[in-house]
């Protein structure tokens, strides 16, 4: 079987694929924007 390479495997327990890491980063960004918007709505 082909060994996972740096290019495909993150070597992390989760996410194992780079696509998952990038998705996670984008998800964190969306959460941050939502939280910042919520902050200004909670304390207008």
């Amino acid at each position, binding site marked *: 079987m082909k060994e996972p390479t740096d290019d495909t*495997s993150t070597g992390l327990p989760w996410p194992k694929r780079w696509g998952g890491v990038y998705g996670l980063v984008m998800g964190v960004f969306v959460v941050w924007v939502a939280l910042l918007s919520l902050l200004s709505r909670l304390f207008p």
Partner: protein
Amino acid sequence: MNALDYVILVGSMMGIAAYAVWNTRGKRDLRGYLKGSGETRWLTIGLSVMATQASAITFLSTPGQGYESGLGFVQNYFGAPFALVIIAVVFLPLYRKLNVYTAYEYLGHRFDSKTRLLGAGLFLIQRGLAAGITIYAPAIVLSTVMGWRLDATIVCSGLLVVIYTVTGGCDAVNLTQKYQIGVIFAGMVAAFFVLLARMPAGLSFGDALTLAGGFHKLEAVDFSMNPDRRYTFWSGTLGGMFLALSYFGTDQSQVQRYLSGASMRESRLGLMFNAVFKIPMQFFILLLGVLIFVFYQFERPPVYFNKTAWSLQAEHDKGGKLRSLDSAFTLAHAAERRQVEDWLGARRAGDARAEAAARQGALSAQERVEAVRAETRAALDAAAPGTKANDSDYVFITFILDHLPHGLIGLLVTAFFAAALSSKSGELNALGSTTTVDIYRHIVRREASDAHYVVASKVFTAFWGLVAIGFALFANLAENLIQAVNILGSIFYGVMLGLFLLAFFFKRVKGTAVFWAAIAAQALVFVLYSTLSISYLWYNVIGCAACILLSLLLEAALGPRGARRAPAP
């Protein structure tokens, strides 16, 4: 500052620098000197990338931005996660595949020698100037409030960073940055908790946020499409993405950090670390400034935070204008404080109508406070026209010196110097590498031993260090310091990014078309910057788009003549 503060400052700075010099002794080959030992792990890379970007200006000036304008500046960083993902997917694999020392070497591989030199030249001009600001910015603020000599502050901090960067190269930079950012975080977190502890008794964190929100300081996200507004979600995400793409992807001071990774995995994770933590870090620093604003609702702040400039003019205040402004400020602040206390009282009593009335009263009182401040600034400007520094840069350091205990003052001042040195060392390391690899080895002396190039690299690093110190000694900045750095970057980065995007994605475009298009696009950005008043972040988009479009047009016009490949770099 007392003796304890000075012991912390001098001990930490010298200790970290000495440790780096000792730990990196014996690095004698060019690869080790410019790219490190090749064993750097992702956390070190992540912290190093963060430390290179977050200079002392970030930590001194950003709380002042929060104090004056609230959280809106955080939007400037919204484009960073997108940019860092693109760099991890597209830029990084190409740099690693070609095993380049500098990003501009890649331009040589893809286009030709002159385009490589143009990229390196744009970087050297922009980063050489920015390195001067990096060292000047904390020095002007710290020397003013501490009563130190500005030139001595610039020379001492400048020489320390030059010594360890020249001695240890890339590994010394990465190593010192790791410890320096630890000192910075420790200082900022400690300041945050002491600030909360110093708030008036009975004022909860929720009350503090309510007051901040009432004064419009928590408006973090603005979805309006008005291009004249400096920070919006769109300018921050799109313009900020171009700025971050250009800065992290093409600025050698950053490229050198992640190319030192032990593997692609380590480099990528280091970049993703920044993609996740950049926005929260900036938010935290801005929030610190917003909470200082709330703190000063209950504690009279100085009418002008730059107390040294104030005292200097107050001594010659013949008509008593400044004294009367100071008295007017005391009255205006006392009136505002009463309104704020009424507001909180009504809020606790659950009286919505009284709360709304008191809030309106507090906003009106705040307008009066700001009017007195503006009058004071005008009076000081009239008395000393050469004084241009933005008073908001002095907010955080004034709070630290007036309200934090000794020991912590030392830690915070150490943090500012650590931040100054960490970004400066990354910049010098990159300036030295680019001059050696893209100019000296490429044009002046093509065949020489590794040892020769290591010596050359050290000489060039020292040279740029001295240039930065010289620039800092003669600098005089009008803008808020952190904006000055971003504006400078935005003027050059768009075209630089255009060069790299053409290299990555437009395979049929050749060097000659790209070279002339880049020069024309850069000229266009200069003209637009001097004639328009749009948010500076848009110049990243304009410069990049102009470079790409003009290249495509020129390539079409030049046809087969332009398609002839220039000699290999």
